[in-house]
């Protein structure tokens, strides 16, 4: 998948879980500070990503995903493995 395809899929997940407008889910945006995603929604988003992108994101790693770009890069690397 391309970076843009992953971002677009992730935007749909963030929209479904946290009600955030998908158009605002851009690479430089922070989950917490810019998009207002709280910790419980973050848990659901990570789980949905694991499901959707067929990757594993351990808790220790998920805590380091601050921005949409962080998450997209992580998923790209995980899929390449």
């Amino acid at each position: 998948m391309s970076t843009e395809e992953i971002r677009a899929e992730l935007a749909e997940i963030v929209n479904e879980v946290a009600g955030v407008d998908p158009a605002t889910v851009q690479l430089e945006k922070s989950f917490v500070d810019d998009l207002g995603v709280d910790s419980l929604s973050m848990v659901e988003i990570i789980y949905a990503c694991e499901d959707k992108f067929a990757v594993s994101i351990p808790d220790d790693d998920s805590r380091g995903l601050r921005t949409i770009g962080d998450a997209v890069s992580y998923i790209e690397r995980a899929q390449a493995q």
Partner: protein
Amino acid sequence: MTDLPQTSPRPGSAILGLGAYEPSRVISNQQMCQWIDSSDEWIRQRTGIVERRWAEPEETLLAMTAAASRRALDQAGTTPDQIDGIIVATVTHLEQTPALAVRLAGELGCAPCPAWDISAACAGFCHALAQADALIRAGVLEHVLVVAGDRLSDLTDLTDRSTAFLFADGAGAAVVGPSDGPRIGPVVWGSDPSQGHTIGQTLDWRQAVERSQPAYLRMDGQPVFRWATTAMAEVTRRILADSGLTAEQLDFFVPHQANNRITDSMLRHLRLPQSVQVARSIQRLGNTSASSIPLAIDQLYRAGQVADGATCLMVGFGAGLVYAGQVVILPGRPAGDDRPLVLADPAPTTPVPDLTLNP
């Protein structure tokens, strides 16, 4: 080999009556914020809780479970002497022995009957209901009182800003008896010991006494949330499949009232039809452990929403981690039953050793 005599099986069991008891002390989110650094908005957003109820000293576990049981007996038209088994699900009966169920048998004036407690945390009501259903169908017992009661406030650390606002008190009870066909569906239940560390006590009782420190409930919220939102949606699907009903045939979905966000997430996974009414009693009652499911169903009754024969999918999940659930067919309750939820016969306060050393 000699065969031993067996009891005669019955075609099914049913919930004949259900009752609940909501303790009297209402604690708002604003009041909670005296003790923890939080806000009404934060608590509502993270949990859906607007207020919770805590028991007053006279609202002992025995008093609350007795009040709920009397209401269940009333609806069932069953007298205490017809009860031949009592199962109490609780994790806050702070006396290791004797069981609360035996005290309850005495309090209600039941004939001498088997009475025992079970420890299955927030899934306790569904576990006890499964036991009662099996025992009645096997012909071992005839009328079983299934009771859930907890005073989580006794074990709540008022300075723990991750749990203090969640926990609350209450009791619920159901009279389960024989019926001409199964009205309690197959139970789906299990445990996940690998997640045992996520909910428990800060200290066991011996440590609490030796260190002269209070023991509290503690919870690692995020792994529990993750487990509840994923594994419990799948368990709910299995409960429905095993019941033989379709989602369209379901009237009520009553998940353990742990957190509205868990319920929301389960619903996103389950995609139940709009016609299924979902219990949200956590808004007013907080997380009351094993009693949350009967309290939620009682609230639906008192709102006049439960018709005779309504179908209800219940699923409980909690410390262990453990889970249990089943579909039940609910009995009707006479309209206009709006008696206030007060202690009918205040029970004598049971002396409880001060093991928690709460201030």
